[in-house]
């Protein structure tokens, strides 16, 4: 019986699969354009940028001969003569190809001052046409005492690998000591954890601010008659249709020393001279809360709208007072919307760049601002990428905790 049933069963499965195939192909066809677009414009660039945070191409590209030669060095005393000879050849080539500066900049991140030492060594070595009598060891150590220092050579040796943890360590205020062990950077240089903490803090305050302002608003809209609700939501949505730059500039107009708010307060006599509002933490928070408000409100509103008002009535009839009914019956059911709204706002706030840059304090910038600076001003793509990676991982970690605590199905957009 079963031996007969088995092939029939299998062919049924095959038939089902074949029957469903056109639908699946159509579905795939529908998704494909967007998927390709995302891969090309989003996933690939992000992947490439993340790779930059561990990328260590310069030393390998320039020190073609030195790095293989130094591999066998035991790290005690100076490396043997062939290593110096290889370095001389590499530096000559670098001088000719104008790649010495790039190498110098890269090594400078790990050994301050290396940029000029590399450049001067490359210049000096290029002037020596034939192998010097005393050997390359004597010649190079004669250019600068830095070449007599074991640490210089161990840094070179460490950078033989095409990947480096330097940027990532650096973005967490860590570094490799002379002995290669991971250690905290000196307190005077430690800035990135503070920035990360500040970024998280501002994002948290903005999230809380939008929630405190947005929750009652969403509730009012949810229980209002449809026409009133539509008007209320229009006002919530209106800012979303305006450019971010325009809205931020509007805040500049409002907050500046001779701006609308100060003018108003001085006329009313609250203050005799302008209060510093722009370029402060307050300015950043006010503008960001305003811009993020719709993102928090919309998911909460759409979840609230699905909660029947009869539930509150039922709770009241069963003996609960208005507050108790709201807190025990209504509020718990809004958690999916609150979760979604807060998550969106928090994550978006982590990446804010324009608004803090325009209305925030000079010493109060967020992570994105530093990433931008490292890319545009310092041309240190490695560190910029590493900071981006840290931000991305922090976001993912928070999301993971979030999902773990609340469950992914507890986050709902509507």
């Amino acid at each position: 019986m079963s031996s007969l049933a088995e092939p029939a069963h299998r062919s049924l499965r095959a038939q089902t699969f074949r029957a469903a195939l056109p639908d699946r192909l159509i579905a795939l066809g529908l998704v494909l354009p967007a998927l390709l677009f995302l891969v090309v414009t989003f996933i690939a660039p992000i992947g490439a940028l993340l790779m930059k945070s561990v990328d260590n191409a310069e030393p390998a590209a320039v020190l073609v001969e030195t790095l293989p030669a130094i591999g066998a060095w035991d790290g005690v005393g100076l490396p043997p003569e062939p290593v110096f000879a290889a370095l001389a050849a590499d530096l000559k080539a670098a001088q000719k190809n104008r790649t010495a500066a790039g190498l110098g900049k890269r090594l400078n991140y790990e050994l301050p001052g290396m940029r000029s030492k590399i450049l001067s060594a490359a210049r000096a070595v290029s002037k020596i046409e034939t192998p010097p009598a005393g050997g390359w060891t004597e010649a190079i150590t004669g250019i600068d005492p830095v070449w007599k220092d074991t640490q210089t050579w161990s840094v070179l040796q460490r950078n033989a690998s095409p990947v480096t943890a330097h940027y990532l360590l650096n973005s967490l205020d860590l570094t490799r000591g002379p002995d290669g062990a991971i250690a905290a950077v000196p307190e005077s240089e430690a800035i990135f954890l503070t920035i990360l903490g500040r970024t998280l803090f501002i994002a948290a305050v903005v999230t809380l601010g939008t929630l405190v302002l947005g929750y009652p608003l969403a509730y009012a809209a949810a229980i209002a008659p449809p026409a009133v609700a539509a008007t209320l939501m229009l006002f919530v949505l209106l800012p979303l249709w305006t450019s971010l730059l325009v809205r931020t500039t509007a805040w500049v107009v409002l907050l500046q020393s001779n701006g609308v708010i100060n003018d108003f307060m001085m006329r009313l006599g609250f203050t005799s001279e302008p209060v510093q509002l722009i370029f402060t933490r307050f300015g950043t928070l006010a503008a960001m809360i305003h811009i993020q408000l719709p993102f928090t409100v919309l998911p909460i509103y759409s979840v609230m709208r699905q909660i029947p008002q009869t539930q509150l009535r039922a709770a009241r009839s069963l003996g609960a007072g208005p507050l108790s009914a709201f807190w025990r019956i209504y509020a718990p059911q809004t958690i999916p919307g609150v979760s979604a709204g807060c998550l969106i706002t928090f994550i978006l706030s982590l990446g804010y760049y324009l608004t803090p840059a325009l209305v925030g304090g000079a010493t109060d910038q967020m992570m994105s601002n530093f990433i931008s600076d490292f890319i545009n001003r310092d041309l240190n793509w490695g560190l910029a990428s590493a900071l981006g990676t840290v931000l991305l991982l922090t976001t993912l970690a928070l999301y993971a905790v979030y999902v773990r605590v609340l469950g992914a199905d507890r986050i709902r957009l509507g």
Partner: protein
Amino acid sequence: MLVKTPVGTEALVAFERVTKSYDGATLVVKALDLTVRRGEFLTLLGPSGSGKTTTLMMLAGFERPTSGHILLDGAPVEKLPPEKRNIGVVFQNYALFPHMSVEENIAFPLRYHGVTGPAAKEKVDKVLGMIHLEGFGGRRPTQLSGGQQQRVALARALVFQPKLVLMDEPLGALDKQLRERMQVEIKHIQRSLGVTIVFVTHDQSEALTMSDRIAVFSDGMVQQLAGPTELYERPANRFVAQFIGENNVLPGDVSTDGRALRLAGGAVVLLPAAIAPGAVEATVRPERLQAADRASDRAIRFPATVREVFFLGDHARLTCEGLGVAELSVKMAAAEFSVLQPAAGSSLTLAFEPEAIHVLAR
């Protein structure tokens, strides 16, 4: 658990000249006077927009009367919030709390009525038994069928021993079979607990099945307040006559002595008691019309022409012309139908007993 109280005539609730307007222009409820007796099952029956649900919501405390008073146990309650009224409410879509288990839903009112700990647990278990949902306490409402959700809502409204339970079309969302089973079940629970229930529905057969008394609402007013039999047999006016069951409304004239009713088409019916002479409307139920040869000697016979015939298994439905009415509805038993075999266009003699005629108040 609940104290049994016999159906009495003592008023538990009294509406006194209650009106309600939402927009300040039209009255949804017009000068309502209505009493609910202790222990009775009172149904507010009417089409949508007739004011029945508004009346219920005013009693529950979700709507405030525009004028008039609502007395509960003799004390005015118009200004009392719902939670202070001690009235259980079952809503149309149950309004169970989806984030709580069945047990938590049922236990919800208990903490507000001073019942906690083991006593609460015991009450919940007892009520779960009463609604035949033992072992379902840990489930979420969404894991229950419509009928089960309905029973949980009922249990939740009963568990804290309210003075009164209000039900707003509680069976509307159930299919026909389940609805009929729940009607019987609710009636059983009501009888065994002796609890007073005010029930709102637009389904007249539901109202007839379940109620001790029915208040028929139309246009913001109570058209008639009576028991099911009286309502069916002696409707107060044309609206009630046609809203409760199917009915034929016949034009007629009462003789000058007030003792005889002459129907259009010539049939004369002697009235049991004298009424004012003049033009009136009388009603006769389709099932009270029958073939003349089966009727008694006292029956009043009249000629009719068959227009349409519908066979429905246990009975047949004929639309005839007769008694001055173009569409006289006749409900004929299957046995009678198979003998007569009336066809559309044929003529036949129909008859009714004199008691079947009910004269509507003018």
